């Protein structure tokens, strides 16, 4: 079971995790990325490429389902305006055994960083800048090739 959502609404962990657990797997791994509050960011804006984004996330989820024999994958990404502490992304995977769940969860967030069309703009008070892509993210994505 694959669930993908690109949404302006806050990410509800209770609902998302319950959906993944409902598949009866023994092992569920999750990753949550939040807007950090420790570097002066007052607001984060997430832009994306409607249509392509959803397709890219579904493609990644399908790859992970096959590669690790998963029972469920959920990928939720928020778009629009967020504040420090808000959840940006939530990924959960369910499998019979823990290694499959944990590895595939790492795979999905690594690949999402390089293969899904999202762009972050950070506001600090009156100035706003587009976040630059990091070489370390490209390297993390490539190690799964």
């Amino acid at each position, binding site marked *: 079971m694959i669930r993908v959502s690109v949404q302006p609404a806050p990410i509800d962990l209770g609902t998302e995790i319950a959906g993944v657990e409902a598949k009866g797997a023994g092992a569920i791994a999750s990753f949550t990325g939040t807007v950090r509050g420790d570097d002066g960011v007052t607001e984060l804006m997430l*832009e994306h490429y409607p249509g392509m984004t959803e397709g890219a996330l579904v493609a990644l989820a399908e790859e992970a389902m096959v590669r690790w024999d998963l029972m469920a994958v959920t990928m939720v990404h928020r778009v629009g305006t967020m504040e420090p502490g808000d959840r940006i992304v939530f990924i959960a995977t369910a499998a019979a055994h823990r290694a499959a769940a944990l590895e595939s969860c790492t795979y999905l967030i690594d690949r999402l960083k390089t293969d899904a069309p999202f762009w972050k703009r950070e506001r600090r008070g009156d100035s706003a800048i587009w976040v630059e892509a990091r070489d370390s993210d490209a390297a993390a994505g490539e190690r799964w090739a």
Partner: protein
Amino acid sequence: MLYFAWVREGVGSGEEQVDPPEAVRNVADLIDWLAQRSPGHAEALREPTKLRAAIDQRFAPLDALLGDAREVALFPPVTGG
């Protein structure tokens, strides 16, 4: 054409219809050709190596042929997650 993030801001629009000549064969050609449309285009598309592209909603390198693409997008490297 679709533009995102600072490319969209530079061009001044997120979307426009274009009809490039036959000499425009790949993404790099398209960027050069689009750069002539306005000072905003010229500025935003000045450094093609800083741009990424998608053809019909799939990532494509600068030397990818446009073929009969219906939707081409230009944007900075992605920064989601």
